[in-house]
């Protein structure tokens, strides 16, 4: 946070959380926070340019064990995007799996100031935090994977929701995490037996279904005043015809009453879950069915997970899915079992506009954004790097804002786009206010971070501001894309970190974590079972497991009391 005063004048401000839609407005920042007015500020003249709060990414894989393995086993990716160190920046490398420095600089250049690391294997929490500390500029947080965990499945089986709540509270505290992440519930555990699970299949040995796991975790999460709901990567990701599983997953939490005004489930990278057809040959878009459900229901939010054409590195805790993908491509593949917690797989993938399947996938991400009427229900993501690297966000923004651009792009794609996807027939174009919603406002609200200064520019908010080098009237898709790739200014905590598309300062970001507060008696009871697991199965001891405070040099704690 920078001390002193800053005034941004003559900007056209889009701050959807505060209902500011393209108003000429000054923004005053003192000691890193937005204030009513300032006395002797440094002045930045925005000269009529578009001004938004710092971007908030709800779902991205930027740090931790699998990201690092991705870097290690893809030297050919590290070869791309190399930039020598400068007086300000450290050496950069990588495209789909950039190094930590490049991750911070490139997000900041796009005007982002907060990124959620969406999947932290609890056993690799220390590694994840070490990398997050190494990412300059950005504030971040990470969600531990709790769904394929033996403790979780045993409590779901026995129906002890309170004890499950005590367990997830312990786990979130032990990993300095943010919320509950679910990835192919039951399926990743089944993968240890060489199998996978659909939503109502029994998980081998544990005899619970993915549906029961999701419901159990949603109920347990809502025992606390958690800022974010469960964050769900459902079953059967990437399989033709999976949209029915997806809709059934959404239905699971319909009756659950969330803490405060937010959904009970965030369903992530929905593009990968909106597939029709029975096999790759008759593969088609079911974005319409998914959007229809989201339009009619209020209990869930999504992020789109839109495709960026080109080469990328897929990585997920969904081990069986990565194996299926590897069988299609025959490229290199690696797999990892994380003891009794989760697993993961990584394989490179090329999204090609010449492939009918990739073409339909490409259309689906954008269809979701265009067919869901209320932009507050969705966030812009590429599930970085799974559907493409985050550096492609400006491409998606320009597509959503320009039907002409979509039409031109569709001409370069496989012709199936005209009969197995809806995209060419959609006329809607996003305006800048809607773009501000899906790139900051919605994510901040869904993560509960708007109450902690993120995603808006109201008094008391963090002094995180992006000034884009376009006027609000700009309609040229190419210029819009360029502007969203490199800001005129990015300001983080009142300090100018990017100027004219160049990184000029690299302050350290903060790690935001949640502390769920659980009843001592429940915790004690849960602890008996947990210690038994450590004694019998874990490769580390109970006392060596939790992440020490030293791993978070710039911590920011959010307390989540038990709901009475």
């Amino acid at each position, binding site marked *: 946070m920078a001390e002193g005063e800053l005034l941004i004048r003559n900007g056209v401000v889009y701050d959807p959380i505060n209902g500011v839609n393209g108003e000429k407005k000054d923004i005053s920042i003192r000691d890193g926070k937005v204030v009513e007015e300032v006395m002797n500020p440094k002045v930045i003249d925005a000269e009529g340019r578009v001004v938004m709060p710092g971007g908030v990414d709800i779902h991205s894989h930027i740090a931790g064990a699998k990201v690092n393995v991705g870097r290690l*086993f*893809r030297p*050919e990716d590290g070869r791309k995007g190399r930039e020598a160190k400068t007086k300000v920046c450290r050496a950069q490398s990588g495209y789909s799996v950039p190094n930590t420095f490049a991750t911070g600089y490139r997000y900041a250049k796009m005007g982002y100031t907060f990124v959620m690391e969406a999947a932290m294997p609890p056993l690799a929490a220390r590694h994840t935090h070490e990398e997050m500390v190494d990412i300059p500029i950005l504030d971040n947080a990470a969600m531990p994977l709790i769904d394929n965990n033996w403790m979780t499945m045993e409590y779901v089986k026995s129906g002890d929701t309170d004890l499950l709540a005590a367990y997830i509270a312990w786990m979130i505290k032990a990993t300095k995490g943010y919320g509950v992440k679910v990835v192919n519930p039951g399926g990743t555990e089944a993968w240890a037996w060489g199998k996978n699970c659909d939503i109502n299949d029994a998980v081998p040995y544990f005899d619970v279904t993915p549906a029961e796991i999701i419901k159990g975790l949603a109920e347990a999460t809502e025992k606390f005043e958690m800022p974010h709901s469960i964050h769900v990567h459902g079953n059967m990701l990437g399989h033709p015809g999976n949209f029915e599983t997806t809709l059934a997953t959404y239905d699971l939490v319909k009756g659950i009453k969330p803490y405060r005004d937010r959904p009970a489930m965030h369903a992530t990278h929905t593009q990968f879950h909106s597939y029709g057809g029975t096999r790759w040959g008759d593969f088609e878009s079911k974005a319409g069915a998914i959007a229809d459900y989201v339009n009619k229901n209020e209990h869930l939010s999504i992020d789109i997970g839109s495709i960026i054409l080109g080469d990328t590195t897929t990585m997920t805790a969904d081990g069986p899915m990565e194996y299926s993908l590897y069988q299609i491509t025959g490229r290199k593949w690696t797999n990892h079992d994380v003891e009794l917690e989760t697993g993961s797989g990584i394989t490179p993938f090329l999204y090609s506009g010449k492939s009918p399947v990739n073409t339909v996938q490409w259309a689906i991400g954008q269809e979701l954004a265009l067919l869901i009427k209320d932009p507050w229900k969705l966030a812009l993501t590429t599930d970085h790097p799974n559907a493409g690297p985050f550096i492609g966000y400006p491409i998606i923004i320009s597509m959503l804002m320009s039907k002409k651009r979509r039409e031109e792009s569709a001409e370069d794609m496989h012709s199936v786009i005209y009969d197995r996807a809806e995209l060419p027939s959609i006329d809607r174009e996003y305006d800048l206010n809607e773009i501000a919603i899906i790139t900051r406002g919605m994510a901040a609200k869904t993560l509960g971070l708007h109450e902690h200064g993120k995603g808006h520019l109201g008094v008391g908010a963090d002094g995180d501001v992006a000034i884009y080098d376009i006027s609000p009237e700009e309609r040229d898709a190419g210029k819009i894309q360029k502007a969203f790739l490199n800001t005129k200014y990015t300001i983080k905590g009142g300090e100018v970190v990017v100027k004219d598309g160049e990184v000029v300062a690299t302050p350290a970001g903060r790690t935001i974590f949640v502390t769920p507060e659980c009843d001592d008696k429940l915790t004690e009871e849960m602890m008996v079972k947990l210690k038994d697991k450590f004694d019998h199965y874990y490769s580390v001891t109970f006392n060596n497991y939790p992440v020490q405070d030293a791993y978070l040099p710039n911590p920011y704690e959010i307390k989540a009391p038990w709901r009475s």
Partner: protein
Amino acid sequence: MQTIKLKLKEEITSGNAKIPIEADSLTPDKIFGKSEAEIKAVKVWWGNREENTGDLFDMSVEGEAASVEEVKIVMEGDLSRVKHIGDGMKAGEIEANGDVDMHCGAMMQGGRVTVKGNADCWAGREMHGGELIIEGDAGDNLCAMYRGEMTGMTGGKVTVGGNAGECVGQYMAGGEILIKGNTNILTGLNMKGGKITIEGDAIMPGADMTGGEITVKGKVLDMIPSFKSDGTESIEGVEYKKYLGDLAMTEKKAKGVLYVR
């Protein structure tokens, strides 16, 4: 015709550390049209520092060039720590009088590089066109892909007067390689296209190949067992056994051809 002589100053490589130089900015196409003073100011990496060419090399220029094809760079002195000679070169000629370090002629697109000595690893890496002549021995990964990539050399011609190291032409997809001596293990590993001729002996050539052609005129040591015999063929009057493979990549993909005496 223009000849630019670049003689590496003795003190540059006389230290114990022998800090390497990366000479990819000194190709005829990048230098053509520059005055002597301008060439001396071309930046060259020396370890982690960017230096002026004139500070590292003694330079003399003879003649004039009407086109880049008429530019010849002659490099002299102890070149054993000079990397990336002719890297990315498009046209013209480079002659290196002595042993050169890694990545000589890598990513080359045209023109000719002649090494009058040995070349270290990665010579001709991912070469697309042009000609590379190594009069001495070549190190490992000659004309291969860079680590992790799936395509090596795609075009051009490489001749090695002596022996070559391991994994010659790995993931090669096009172009021609002629080795007058022997090669170490796994020549043509993962090869997809192009042609490799070895006048001497080769160890385990053609592993995992799915296309292209390897001819071994000497002995094959440790022949890969997953090749199937496909009769004999006469090449330049000599009878060769013809094999197809590598069947380890499945029968459908085993389109590589291996000629063995």
